[in-house]
């Protein structure tokens, strides 16, 4: 179906899942959500760059930083995609964190040769909006508009 067809149908796809704290699940979860985005004809470079990279970062942080790969802890993912935007929420069982104090600029000379510290930076650059909530754990909500980056 063409993008126009999708507009006519006012299609909305929601995905919910709960994954063990194991980084081997990341690639499959990303592929699932990529396919959901393609189903509503999300722009192709958003499907191949922005969404997989930002989602992969958020999942890696939830599994490694928040849940510390504890097999007793889970990561909850919810994505909602419609003609206007993608909203993904990732909930972990960690303490939460503060975006401003946790993120550094990896493009600065003193950081550019560091191996880590590019995750939150990429999430904020590749998504239109990042929000944090505390709700029985820590929720990271990422929003990507289908069209222009303006809100």
């Amino acid at each position: 179906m063409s993008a126009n067809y999708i507009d006519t149908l006012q299609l909305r796809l929601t995905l919910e899942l709960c994954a063990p704290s194991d980084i081997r699940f990341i690639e499959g979860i990303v592929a699932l959500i990529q396919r959901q985005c393609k189903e509503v004809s999300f722009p192709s470079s958003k499907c191949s760059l922005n969404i997989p990279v930002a989602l992969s970062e958020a999942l890696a942080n939830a599994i490694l930083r928040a849940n510390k790969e504890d097999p007793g802890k889970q990561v909850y993912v919810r994505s909602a995609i419609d003609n206007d935007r993608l909203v993904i929420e990732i909930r972990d069982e960690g303490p939460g964190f503060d975006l401003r104090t946790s993120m550094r600029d990896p493009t600065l000379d003193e950081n550019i040769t560091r191996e880590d510290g590019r995750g939150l930076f990429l999430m904020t650059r590749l998504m239109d909006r990042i929000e944090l909530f505390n709700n029985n754990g820590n929720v990271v909500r990422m929003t990507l508009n289908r069209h222009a980056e303006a809100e």
Partner: protein
Amino acid sequence: MSFAIKKQSEVVVVDVEGQLIVGNRQELKQKVLDELERGERKFLIDFSQTGYIDSSGLGVLVSLSKKIREQGGELRLANLNEDLKTLFELTKLDTLFQIADTRERALETF
């Protein structure tokens, strides 16, 4: 995803097939470090068959590049598609790496 390694006129060429992400970056790192230990000094990573790269994947490229340089060697990258170019520009890693458009171009100038 997998990493295919072969030697092409003095250069160790690695093809990244699929994603380069937190789940498999250690495998790439180990494979390249093994070659470095064996005495290899010229490395080319070809991304023509790569999907996406996350920050852990980028991190591994940065640290490999450092280790190779410390041994007097060199790491080059080739065949970044538009998405990967955007990723390297966003993180300014395009200024850190020698990036060639094609594998041939990268091999020529080593």
